[in-house]
């Protein structure tokens, strides 16, 4: 039996909220790997990661537009919105771990698994909700997109199944609403983030007002990730994330007409030695208290949380704030680069990196004592 995942508007809201969290969760690993690359080296690798990174930002914004169109605001400040790294993602029968780490062959493998065209569950012998299965390590997953709200004891077979469930949910709920002469797209159109506020960020933003535009937004997310029908290039000639990364394994670009695994374009060099040796999944406790790197990592986390809070307000109608948030984003980039280029004082091997630890708990006296007072500098 394959139960439907989304049966009411609350389920759909919850799944889209989870989609925003999921799209964001790829940003810390991509951003860290990108800035771990030495200046002026690995230009092709850096360009590939950067291109994917900005499209993930677009995907997050597109998901937020769909949720807003359905009458619910996103919440980027919710407890646990930024996962505690490493975090796990499903990949069919198996799963894998996503870390904040330097650019390396291992990291590239993880990126390929994140973006790999989904093997969606075609097997209907699983009992339980459609596209889901029961896993022995179920508790290890923290991202909300992995577990449907209506059946939290199950997890999705793949991220492809997660997005399929969202589209089927929209289809089903909108049809039900239409039969009553209503629509589920009751959101305030003025909350939609448009190109006026979102620029040079990996593609065209889609304003969502109805089922068609919602499907266009979701299709863009799915196609940019895994490619259209698992092709290397999409209909507009843009290479999908998976094959963009795969080129880095071959050290060669794909050309239109190439077969998967056999790029025939220009060759380039990928030098994994020209990378700062970031400590994998760094935490504040890895940095000596009182050191500059500790203070800078605290400041980065604080500023990142403020940045998310500003974007959150922008998604709730104060779109003007997005322009300032973009400036803040460029500052965050500089601060992340500085952390990554600095060795950890007490450690002869590793460099620092942003820890992306958000202060979700109520600030107790202990917590406040940990970090010096920060300012956006």
């Amino acid at each position: 039996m394959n139960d439907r995942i989304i049966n009411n508007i609350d389920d759909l809201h919850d799944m889209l909220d989870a989609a925003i969290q999921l799209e964001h969760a790829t940003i810390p690993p991509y951003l860290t790997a990108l800035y771990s690359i030495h200046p002026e080296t690995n230009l092709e690798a850096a360009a590939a990661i950067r291109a994917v990174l900005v499209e993930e930002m677009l995907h997050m914004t597109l998901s937020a537009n769909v949720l807003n169109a359905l009458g619910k605001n996103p919440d980027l400040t919710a407890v646990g919105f930024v996962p505690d790294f490493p975090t796990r993602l499903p990949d069919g029968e198996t799963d894998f771990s996503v870390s904040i780490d330097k650019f390396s062959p291992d990291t590239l493998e993880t990126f390929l698994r994140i973006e790999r065209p989904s093997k969606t569950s075609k097997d209907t012998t699983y009992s339980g909700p459609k596209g889901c299965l029961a896993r022995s390590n179920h508790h290890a997953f923290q991202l909300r997109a992995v577990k449907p709200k209506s059946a939290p004891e199950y997890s999705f077979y793949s991220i492809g199944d997660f997005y399929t469930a969202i589209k089927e949910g929209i289809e089903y709920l909108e049809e039900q609403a239409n039969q009553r002469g209503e629509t589920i797209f009751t959101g305030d159109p003025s909350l939609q983030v448009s190109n006026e506020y979102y620029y040079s960020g990996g593609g065209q933003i889609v304003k969502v007002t109805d089922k068609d535009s919602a499907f266009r937004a979701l299709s863009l997310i799915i196609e940019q990730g895994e490619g259209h029908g698992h092709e290397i290039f999409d209909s507009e000639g843009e290479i999908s994330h998976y094959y963009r990364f795969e080129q880095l394994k071959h050290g060669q670009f794909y050309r239109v007409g190439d077969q998967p695994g056999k790029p025939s374009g220009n060759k380039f060099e990928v030098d994994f030695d020209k990378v700062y040796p970031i400590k994998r999944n760094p935490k504040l406790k890895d940095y000596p208290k009182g050191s500059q790197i500790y203070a800078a990592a605290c400041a980065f986390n604080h500023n990142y949380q403020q940045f998310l809070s500003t974007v959150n307000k922008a998604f709730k109608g104060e779109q003007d704030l997005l322009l300032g948030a973009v400036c803040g984003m460029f500052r965050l980039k500089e601060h992340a680069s500085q952390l990554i280029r600095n060795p950890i004082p007490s450690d002869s091997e590793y460099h620092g990196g942003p820890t992306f630890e958000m202060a979700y708990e109520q600030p107790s006296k202990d917590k406040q004592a940990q970090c010096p007072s920060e300012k956006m500098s």
Partner: protein
Amino acid sequence: MTNQAYQIQQFIELSGALTDFNAYSLNGTGQVQSYYDTLTRIVGCVMVDELLSIFAAIYEAATDHEAFNEALRKHIIGNEKFGPVARNIIKLWYTGTWYQMAQFWRETYGMSDEDVTFFVSSASYAEGLLWQAIDANPSGAKGPGYGSWSLPPSINFDNCWQFKPFNHTS
């Protein structure tokens, strides 16, 4: 610690004292190694060794920041041989550019063929400390975002260099 690692650590401290940006900021530019290499290539290892040794001696002998500054002025900045090199290190960090040494210095202390004015790299241009000092983006690089020019610059001295009295027991 290898000799070169020690030399680089000393070079960072000397650069910190000369530019008033601390080791965290200097490392953060990603330019330490390439500036050290540029300096040794042009003025030679022997002179860099001498300069860093004098710096270490000044640092160890000084009891406070004021005494340290005084000695730095007297023995490095005001020295005919090392003063121009020290000023070049400052310009290197602030602008990412190696400036050709003055003619009198070249005639007295050596004329490297590579001693011409040049940007160390395109990254060194973008990482010049002058941009941090005035909180502006390098023209044509590190785009700060649409409308950022409407915001006042945020200038602070959180990352200035600090003299820490030398601990003779360590």
